């Protein structure tokens, strides 16, 4: 019997858009920026599209907040080689910091969010510092542990509102400001990190993932590089947490909940790790899905798990990598 094999060939248009020739005609330009433009425009228009369904407008915000945490996970794990199991550490710290600034020091919202993002990121970097000189699973374990630790401390000592959380945080003045206060930073961080990992300094970060010993032998302090990376990732996570706290006008223990650690990781798996845009797409699928599944009651988690498992079995490379391949290459059957 004749054996057939699938062969993948780059589209001629893809080859033509490498290098300077990319700007030779409108077709090439569109090929390159079309998908990006569509993506950006689509996200910017989301609040208008969901104008008809007020409940879902909130979901758009939550989606973007999760997407930001997912980008931070993807950045750390696929570009620096640090597996962070504690997105909840970032969101929790960001949320509580902004609550403290806003409620206890009565800083206005436009001051408390940036301040919480910066100081929260600094705080997260400091507490994660002990694990950074080490290689191996220590970083993963310590990030998994901290959210539990902090929520237990708040619960046991009954500080920062205890189990009730800090209520009465200032909300956003306008629903549209509320939307774009997360959409725009999310897009900014997405494109900024993508740019960053292709700069020279970004290559050093990626070198740490591939072979940290060689980076050391190149006269670069690897621990310092990891500190920078964790700071950048915490910035994204803390912003997301601070935003959520202001959106719900409440900072509670649920900001340290496992959801913020697990859903971003699952989004990265579904969307395709190492693409940065994949995690965004992943959370745009997972977050609405878990909202829809609310109707299923307790079975929610079961259905959720089945969907995840199916994704892992059928498209383990991730949606984004699959789509990119389809976009750039075509397939044909050839004889072996």
């Amino acid at each position, binding site marked *: 019997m004749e054996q057939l094999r699938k062969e993948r060939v780059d589209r001629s248009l893809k080859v033509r858009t490498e290098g300077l020739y990319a700007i030779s005609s409108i077709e090439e330009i569109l090929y390159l920026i079309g998908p990006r433009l569509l993506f950006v425009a689509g996200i910017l228009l989301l609040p208008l599209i969901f104008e008809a369904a007020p409940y879902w407008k909130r979901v758009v915000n939550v989606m973007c907040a999760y997407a930001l945490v997912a980008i931070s996970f993807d950045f750390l794990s696929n570009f620096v080689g640090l597996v962070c199991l504690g997105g909840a550490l970032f969101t929790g710290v960001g949320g509580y910091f902004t609550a403290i600034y806003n409620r206890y020091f009565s800083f206005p919202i436009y001051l408390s969010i940036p301040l919480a993002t910066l100081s929260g990121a600094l705080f997260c970097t400091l507490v994660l510092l002990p694990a950074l000189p080490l290689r191996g699973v220590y970083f993963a374990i310590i990030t998994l542990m901290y959210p539990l630790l902090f929520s237990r401390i708040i619960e046991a000592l009954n500080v920062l509102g205890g189990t009730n959380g800090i209520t009465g945080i200032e909300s956003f003045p306008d629903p549209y400001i509320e939307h774009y206060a997360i959409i725009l930073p999310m897009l900014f961080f997405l494109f900024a990190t993508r740019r960053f990992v292709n700069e020279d300094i970004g*290559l*050093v970060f*990626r*070198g740490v993932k591939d*072979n940290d010993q060689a980076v050391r032998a*190149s006269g670069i*302090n690897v621990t310092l590089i990891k500190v920078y990376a964790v700071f950048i990732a915490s910035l994204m996570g803390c912003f997301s947490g601070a935003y959520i706290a202001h959106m719900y006008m409440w900072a509670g223990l649920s900001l340290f909940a496992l959801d913020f650690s697990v859903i971003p990781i699952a989004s990265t798996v579904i969307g395709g790790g190492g693409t940065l845009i994949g995690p965004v797409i992943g959370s745009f699928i997972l977050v609405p899905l878990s909202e829809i599944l609310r109707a299923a009651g307790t079975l929610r988690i079961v259905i959720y798990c089945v969907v995840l498992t199916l994704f892992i079995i059928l498209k383990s490379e991730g949606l984004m990598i699959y789509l990119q391949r389809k976009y750039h290459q075509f397939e044909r059957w050839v004889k072996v």
Partner: protein
Amino acid sequence: MSGEAILSVSKLSKSFGGLRALVDVSFEVKRGEIFGIIGPNGSGKTTLINCITGFLKPDGGKVYFKEKDITGLKPHKISQMGIARTFQIMRPYYSLPAYKNLIIPLWSPRAKRLGGWRGGGRHGDRDTVAVDILEEIGFERDSRVPYKLASTLPTGYQKRLELARCIALRPEIIFCDEVFSGLSMSEVAGMIPLIEKMKMEGITLIMVEHRLRELFKVADRVMALNFGEKIAEGDPREVIEDRRVREAYLGREGV
């Protein structure tokens, strides 16, 4: 030979649990020479490199580089001073193209200081320097080889890439941990001129090697280790004639 010692190691020792990997090893390397370190498997050659370059902390003894005590400094501090090393197990930055592998050493403070190209520039400058270095080390500039993903390069090129990564750092000493191993005869023949060229440029080379025949073609002096102890040092021909070296390699019966 100028005779000035660039690196001097005195009574270096290291144990892993009960195993004494290095026992009071002392030697000096002169500026500009090619110094070979030989010895059978497990004789402590790689441990010696790791202790000198800071990847392992020695239990005792001192390492002086240009009369400065560098014992127990962090690896990045030592490489900043001008001591580069290759790794026995090649691990290029797989996800990057070959020439982008050099961006990382070129980004280091030392390379920026000594590089002579405009610092702080965007891609252009550093990329050009990287391709220049790769061409110097035998990557054909006009071929696609420098732009291929490092993971897809054949072994010979990966070994060269290891060396290129060292050269990019503008070092004074390069430790070569078995650069010949796993290469075919013709690939080794291609490497030897490179090594001689580096020597001409004034780089001191310390080569740990299993392939004695090739090493002796280039080495000025060699030292032999066995079970962590120095058993011989001197001219390559004398060392290989040494009774203890022959015993270490061939066993007592074989001599």
